[in-house]
């Protein structure tokens, strides 16, 4: 598996069966590949509940997800207008949203919609999902292309919300927000606490059980 696939499959494990899930664009979209569609209800903000995957030959160009990719219609699916779809999101009816990130900081904030110096011309549904979903899981590569950590003391990029992100999953680590700080709760296969410490710019706690294991 590629690092993206590793992250996506780990995110899938973080989801509760029979819950309502919204998947962002990028790595989050891949999470669908690791879910039993009978057991998870996928919501897409362009107006559908009950998204499934679709085979190439069955593609209907008028059934798409928020990334404008063709998707399938599950049994018991429903369609609704955009205002109703965001009413679900903002109203707290989506159990979990999985989103990508440019940066996540020590205070739990995520930046994933705008890069300083570039034009601010797109936001989509990211801000609505961040204020509305009951649980936010960020899936992201641990480091940017230049090797710098995406997990930073304070976001340099504009934050998407004041809301604290519950969980951050990278190819090296799983962090969970716990008492005002992120806590490393899992070291991904092939990584180590020391490697994670080296690649992470924000300070974090380590779950006692992991220290015992490594110790």
């Amino acid at each position: 598996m590629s690092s993206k696939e590793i992250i996506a499959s780990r995110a899938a494990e973080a989801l509760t069966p029979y819950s309502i899930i919204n998947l962002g664009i990028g790595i989050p979209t891949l999470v669908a590949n690791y879910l039993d569609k009978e057991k998870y209800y996928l919501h897409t903000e362009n107006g559908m509940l009950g998204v499934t995957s679709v085979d190439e030959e069955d593609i209907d160009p008028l059934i798409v997800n928020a990334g404008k990719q063709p998707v399938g219609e599950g049994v018991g699916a429903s369609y609704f207008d955009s205002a109703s779809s965001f009413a679900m999101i903002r109203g707290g009816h989506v159990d979990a949203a999985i989103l990508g990130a440019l940066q996540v900081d020590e205070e739990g904030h995520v930046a994933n919609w705008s890069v300083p110096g570039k034009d601010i011309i797109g936001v989509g549904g990211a801000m609505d999902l961040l204020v509305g979903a009951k649980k936010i899981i960020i899936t992201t590569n641990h480091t940017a292309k230049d090797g710098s950590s995406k997990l930073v003391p304070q976001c340099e990029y504009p934050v998407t919300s004041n809301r604290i992100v519950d969980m951050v999953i990278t190819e090296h680590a799983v962090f969970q927000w716990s008492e005002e700080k992120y806590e490393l709760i899992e070291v991904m296969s092939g990584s180590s606490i020391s490697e994670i410490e080296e690649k992470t710019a924000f300070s974090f706690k380590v779950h006692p059980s992991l220290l015992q294991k490594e110790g």
Partner: protein
Amino acid sequence: MSLTEMTSVDIVKERVKTGDTLMVGGFGLVGSPLTLIEALIEHDVYQLTVISNNVGETGKGLGKLLQQGKLKKAIGSYFTSNREVAGWYNAGKLELELLPQGTLSEAIRAGGAGIGGFYTKTAAGTDLAVGKESKFIDGEEYVLEKALKADVALIRAEKADAKGNLVYYKTARNFNPNMASAASYVIAEVDEIVPDGELSPEEIATPHIYVDAVVKSRYTLTKEGVVERE
């Protein structure tokens, strides 16, 4: 958890607690969750706040709860349909919050949609706007209304599928879909439960995301009044 439970009317006793705020669907008896209201009548809970267009009729439906002394407050648009409401109110034994019907339904929708409040022209300059914030927007006066939410919603639909998706029947729809969105726990009474895939995906007015429990209806409204199903 978004798994919708197919269950019995006992869910009302399990979920409704003293002091709760309830939403109850229906316009008069049309689209009213008769079976769930009966369970409430048999349930020992007090100090309830009820959000519903009416407080039933004298001694009927929610009107029976009033007689039982279970209601602390009613929020609605037309209490006139129950002649006893005024007496309880004047005796200081019932609080009332009267809202225009459009404001009531919009406030419920707002509660479900994560909207904290909204500005409406309705009631601006009238006695019902007294004490409310107002604001001029593009030269016109609007009144600020806060969203309404509830602990439990009791609603009625025509059919549910096994996932808990709901469709409604004609004017029995009314407040039910709005209330389904605005409560922490939603119990839907339905005439029929059908297998998944039988409802048209375009016709589902309440997606199962909003529905926590589905109960088969025991009472139905006919031309001759409310009758118990065989």
